[in-house]
């Protein structure tokens, strides 16, 4: 498997090579790798890469995958336009013209 051609985070184009380099550098959690590389910060919010990164951490540190700390799952569950949210606020405040 070519590490530099294997995409782990498809939203942000982060390769296996980059993830492994981070882990070798001493980063111990998905949260840290997310902050340094942006892996998991794209539109899907880490649905694919979160577990793949967890596997890498588990194998590097020789720990069961359940022991890898999961990042916080943040709202909204799926992308939603600011316009729809703005309208919802106006509606809850008593009509579009309020």
């Amino acid at each position, binding site marked *: 498997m070519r590490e530099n051609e294997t995409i782990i985070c498809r939203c942000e184009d982060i390769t296996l090579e980059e993830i492994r380099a981070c882990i070798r550098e001493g980063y*111990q*959690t998905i*949260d*840290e790798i997310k*902050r*340094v590389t*942006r892996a998991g*910060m*794209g*539109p899907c*919010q880490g649905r694919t890469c979160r577990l793949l990164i967890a596997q890498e951490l588990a194998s590097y540190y020789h720990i069961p995958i359940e022991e890898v700390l999961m990042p*916080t799952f*943040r*709202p*909204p569950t799926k*992308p*939603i*336009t*600011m*316009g729809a*949210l*703005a309208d*919802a*606020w*106006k509606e*809850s405040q008593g009509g579009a013209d309020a």
Partner: protein
Amino acid sequence: MKKGYDIVIIGGGIIGCSIAFELSKRGVKDILLVEKRFLTAGATGRCGAGIRQQWGAELNASIALESTHILEHLEEYTGYDKSIELHQGGYLLVAYTEKEWNQFQKNLEVQHKLGIESYGLTPQECLEKAPYLNLDGVYGGTFCQKDGHANPFHSTQAYAKGAMRQGVDIETFCEVTGFRTQGGAICGVETTKGYVETKMVINCANTYAPELAAMVGDEIPVYSERHQALVTEPVAPLIDCMVMSFSRSYYVQQTPHGSFVMGIGPKEEPSHNFHSSWQFLEQNCAIMCEALPILRKLNVIRQWAGQYDMSPDRHPVIDEAETCKNFYSVCGFSGHGFMVAPRIAILMANFLTGQKDSIDIHKFSKTRFKTGDILIEPSVV
């Protein structure tokens, strides 16, 4: 982690890491930095990533100005092999009322005295700086090109990695649970990873700093306030500058990555609440789409919450505990710790190593709240 260190720094955010870097740069080598989770897990990693010099109080403005000078070459300064993604696209501060406009004129006077290159704008000139800005109700604005954005994660890593190269030990997932004192001075720190002897503690735990200080009997008038933010999907460059309003209480900036990061000022009771709210998501979007209608089309990707460590006058509190010698707290940054950290770290390191500094550190002493000699900052979201 050894059994003892000369100095223990608590908190792995930008404040703790930059102080560790500046102290070790001055030859103070025997330092341990402890962080209860991972670096930038607290306020630094949750902040709006803005840097600005357009402050209304001279002390805030001068510290922010000198911090920007350091951020402009932080990679070289700390030996960091990645970029801190500094982008000086400017801050546009929008005035919606005459009162606000008049305050801005006073702020400009303060800034010009320090050599900050800020200036006033007509509504039309505001539109040139921030295309798509809704000019309804816009009275004018001020602008400074040197303001902008830096990546808080990379900036903190730059300091942390530099500090480690200079001999500092960093212990993550290590929570402080107590302190030991002897003869009225600090002598040790209890942590979840064991006891550490020390001669000095520097408490940089942001909103948890008052609670830690209370363990040695010190009282710091700083409280925690939840602020929320959200980020959109990345799009092509639309607006180069940060757009910010105090009266309508919003800020929004497109990052170099293409996403927009934004937030609104809350009216909340003090708490350590780290949860996101649905109400923020909707209200923020309503306020932002009113100011910049083009944002209506953008998808929100993620929202989060963090804490401002609010001090009564919106200036930091840097002081030794009256009840415990060699226990220092550096907190109360009131939502702008990230952008002033580089200069604050130099100030603190100069003070602790007995070197001269152009800023008098005692101005940040908490005695100002008793003497009434407080520092007023009119411009905070």
